[in-house]
Every structure is written in C-alpha cells, then in structure tokens.
C-alpha cells in the first residue's frame, strides 16, 4: 500500500504518507517517521504508532471522518475539500458557500448585480438564529442557486460571484 494524503484534523492540515505491506507498515505524519501497526474490527481500530497503542472508533460520513481515541474526538476532512472552511482566512472563493444548515430567509441579490465587499447576499436562519452571508470582495453576481424558503446544507453553493 502507498498512500499520500493531506488531511485536516480539527482544522489543522496534516500530511500523511503510509507505505509498505499490511504486516510491515510505516507512516510519516508531517515528516515524522513512525512505525505503524493496524488492526480493524468493524468501526473499531487498534493502532500502534511509534510506541503507542490505542483503540479508536472511526466512522465516515461522506467527506468527513469522525475519530474517537481515548476520549478525544477528532473531526477530519480531506484538506483539498472546499468544505473544510470555517476557520476563517485563506483564499477567497467565487463560490459562496453555506456556513451552516438552515433555511433561506432572504436573497438580497440577483444575477448581473454588482456588489462590494461586505454586501449582504443571502440571509439564513437555523434554530431561530439569523446569519447574513456577505460578499468576500467587489464582484458581479454570476449565478444564484437558492430561493427564499429553501432548506440548505452546510457546504452547499448559494451564489457564484465573479470578482472584479
């Protein structure tokens, strides 16, 4: 087996490489080499990494992996996944994505409209709380993917912008 993958663990990117056969695996996490032992029984895993042996529960829900180890809960995603946002900062995306699940209360823009940074685009409501999704920068609205009353999922594309 040979796996190269960058994953985010609780919002932080970790680079993972796994090589070798099942009975002689080695792993590198952020360039630290570690001997690896793996045993699996359904969702229960026993992992030996370097000199530590722990049991873990691993469940995967689409692009998110939830891992419980010794009372710790880790939420992991593939680092190249657009849905890993939320921690703030980073590159602005022309795709305006729902930060939380909920209902669309208002759509404040239409296709072709020019917006400036901070302009409200969509108003969402979840559990009686309102959140305004606003423009990341000066742009023109290229696509509108939601209507008032629509139920949306986190990560769903609401609006597509074309930055000026």
């Amino acid at each position, binding site marked *: 087996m040979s796996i190269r993958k960058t994953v985010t663990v609780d919002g932080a990117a970790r680079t993972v490489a796994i090589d070798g056969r099942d009975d002689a695996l080695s792993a590198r*996490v952020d360039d630290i080499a570690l001997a690896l032992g793996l045993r699996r029984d359904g969702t229960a895993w026993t992992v030996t990494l370097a000199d530590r042996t722990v049991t873990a529960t691993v469940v*995967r829900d689409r692009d998110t992996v939830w*891992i419980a180890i010794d009372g710790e809960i880790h939420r992991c995603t593939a680092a190249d996944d657009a849905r890993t946002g939320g921690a703030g900062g980073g590159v602005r995306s022309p795709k305006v994505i729902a930060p939380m699940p909920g209902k669309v209360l208002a759509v404040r823009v239409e296709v072709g409209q020019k917006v400036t940074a901070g302009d409200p685009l969509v108003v969402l409501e979840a559990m009686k709380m309102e959140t305004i999704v606003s423009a990341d920068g000066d742009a023109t609205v290229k696509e509108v993917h939601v209507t008032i009353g629509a139920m949306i999922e986190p990560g769903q594309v609401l609006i597509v912008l074309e930055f000026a």
Partner: protein
Amino acid sequence: MPTVRKILIANRGEIAVRIIRTCRAMGVTSVAVHSEADVDAPHVRLADEAVAIGPAPARESYLVVEKLIAAARQSGADAIHPGYGFLAENARFAAAVNDAGLTFIGPPPSAIATMGDKVAARTLMEKAGVPVVPATAVLAPDADTFAKAAADLGYPVVIKAAAGGGGKGMRIVRRVEELPEAVAGAAREATSAFGDGRIYLERYLERPRHIEVQVFADTHGKVVHLGERECSIQRRHQKIIEESPSPAVDATLRAAMTDAGIRAAAAVDYVGAGTIEFLLDDQGRFYFLEMNTRLQVEHPVTEWITGLDLVREQILVARGEPLSFDAVPARGHAIECRLYSEDPAHGFLPATGTVHALGEPSGAWVRFDSGIAAGSRIGVEYDPLLAKISTFGATREEARTRMVAALRETVLLGVVTNRDYLMAVLAHPAFASGATHTQFLAEHLPGWAPPVGRHGDVAAVLAALALTGPAARRGEGAQEAALPSPWEALGPWRPGMGPRPGGAKL
C-alpha cells in the same frame, strides 16, 4: 380528584424521554406525540403509545394546540404534561387543556399569564415584597435629573429606552461626569431606533450571578422550596452549566432567597413545580428576574441533592394530593452540563448531521438524560439540546472532577457538539474556585479553539486511510486502486456505518 392514569407528553427529545420514564415507574400509561421527523425518535420508542401530529416544523406539529388536544382525546389520555419549551408557558394551551376536561400538569393559566407579562410580574413582585432591580420611572432627558436619580440608585447605572430592546439606547454609566453625554446619546439613539426618545435609569449589575429558587406548591395552598440552583455559565443568555447548591449562597442568603421565592409563587396562587430566577450582585443583593412556570431543563441537579423525582411530584400534585414534604434537607453537590449540537469555535453556530456513534457516560453518581441514539438525525427544526450530563458528589470539587470524567466518556461522532468547550469550562481555575458570573465565558474563554489532543497524529493516519477508502477512491486513477489496500486486508469499508446502539465501545 383528577385521576391522571394516562398522560400525553406534549414534547419531544430528552424531556419527553425523562417524563415517560417516571410514568413507567409510577404505572401511568404514557402517550408520545411526534412530528414526521421524529417517527423513530427515542421518546416515541419508549412510550406506551404514540400519535403522529404533523410535519416537521414545530409550528405545524408540537405547537398546534388543537392537534395536541385531539391526540389526547384520540388516545384516551386524561392529562397532558407540557415539558419545557413549546407550549409549556402558553396560558391559552393550559386553558384549552382544562376546557377539554383534561388535567394540565402545571400551574393555573392565570399564573402563567401573569408571569409571562414582564411589567405585570414586576409590579406584582414589588407588591409581594420580592426585590426587583431598582429603577426609576421615565425621566426628563437632562443630566441634572439623571444625576440626582443616579445618586439615589447608586453607581454603576444603566440608561435604558422605555420602548427598548436589543440593547439599543442603552448606556452604562459609572461616574457622574459621564452622564451628560450618555443621557443625550441614549435619548438620540432611542429616538432613531424606536421613534420614542423616552429613557429611564436602572441600577447596573456588574457581573451578576444567575441564581434561581425551585418551588413546589400543591392545590391545598402549601408552597415549599427545594433550594437554589446557580446557572451563571451562559452563552447568549442560554445556560450551559448549572449546579446546586450555589457556591455563593450561604445559609442566611439562602433563607432570604427561598423566602422571596415562596412569596413570589404564593402571589400568583402557584401550583406545581416552578422556578423564580434572580440576579445576585457582588454585594449579596438579589433581584427578581422572572418566574418560569414549568419544569426547568436543569431540574436534575435539584433531584440529586434532594433525592426527589420532580416529575413524580408534579403528577401527585396534579392528582390533587397534598405535598408529602416540607423542608427537604439537601445533601452534597450536583452539576449539570448541557450537550448542544453547536460549534463553540465558530460563534456557537448550530450543527447538524447524523449521530453515527454515541458513547454514554456511566458509573457512580453519573446521570445521562438524552433524547438521541445512534442513527438519530439532528436537523435544524428543533432546539439543539442533545443531552444533559449530571453528576453528584459529597463536595463541589468531587462533583466537578466526576463531571470532567463523565464528559470524557461522552463521545458523539457525526455531529459537532460543545463537549470539549464544556470540558474547558469545568477545568478552568475560576470555575473550580466557584468564581462564576454571567460574563464568565466572555471573560475567561474568548477565542476558544478545540484542544489539539494527544492523538492527533493517529487521527491523521486513520483519516488518511478512511478517506482513501472506496467511497473517496471512486473516479481516481486505476494505479492506486490496484495497490493492496487496507480495505481488502481488513474487510470492506462501510461509509457512514455506525455501531449499533449500545454496541459502541468508545
């Protein structure tokens, strides 16, 4: 006397489960109601009978008075328990239940209506000798008038808009020199926000504690108290940690506060379980905030220290029986934490998803009240409260350390929760020392981020493996697929498959 042999529970989630359990223990038949979203919910499975009451949105199901009365009639229930939230403090609902010839397990509609009206409640409390936050009537908007009033009230003071709400027009004033500008500014802001420039003055409570008194009254005119709870740990005015007794309340203060609580309940001819909420300032002075005319979310901490089952007592009172207790001697200390589906690292935004695995805490002096199970969908339709963890100890410190251990055992996979945030509060030295107040979280945990943990590297390896599994590999190059994968060696990967309820070892 009302019979109360079959109770319809007009609620869902953990409180419905909790009420059904007491019904079972008393040999009372329970009837659950459920929306389309809750067909398979734990409260439906646990109840003796269940009635569907409509679509997922609460205003089309759990909040429709007529549907609930019809469900009670259809099932032959003779009483309705409203739980908390939804219709629990709706006087029209309580009246409709009574008018239908059913027993409402709660206070008379008049008590609900009076306490639901802020102005009426304040006036009545003043008359009953229950302290309220000192305030003036509307004052002429000039600095001299306000300076005189402020000297009488004592600094700090807060200027408020008579038509106000949401903090608009509010100005906190600590010294007389600040008054001229604050009065002018508050009047201006009130005018522009509400079209009404009237302002008044109130004493400002600096970092108060939230302390509440549990009362119980029967239909024979007896009112008793069951001590206090402190619920100062709040975010956005929402309690997340409660305890009893309060580390700030000594025997003298307890006597004064519980006396006031009993006077407040008696003033509205209260019946059943109720809670009088107070703010306690750093001088040991307390002021009436409001009365909750229902069972509280945090009632388990009172159950721990009194040994009573409050839902059982509610049912006995509803049957017209006299209270079987007077002053209940409290023992030990209890703490409750509320597990919410929300992200404390991102403004407490509500989180949704599927509960794929649930590890419940257990052991001596640990209680877990929940309305979820492995497989439950957590949507946006309802309150984000998932479960309540409560612990008991001979001392506060014993209850606190037991809670830290219990939270560590509380492992929910599939939905973001506030568990790690709760652990951070419990572990904070200021919490451990009992120095709690309503600004605690803003002061001590601003910019909180999830802990890194000791096993982040193991998680990274497992995540890399899981994300390389069949569901993620589909569409990728054949080269990687041809390599021996852990899935072939270790059995097929089943995306999203959680362990069966009770089968998870976390």
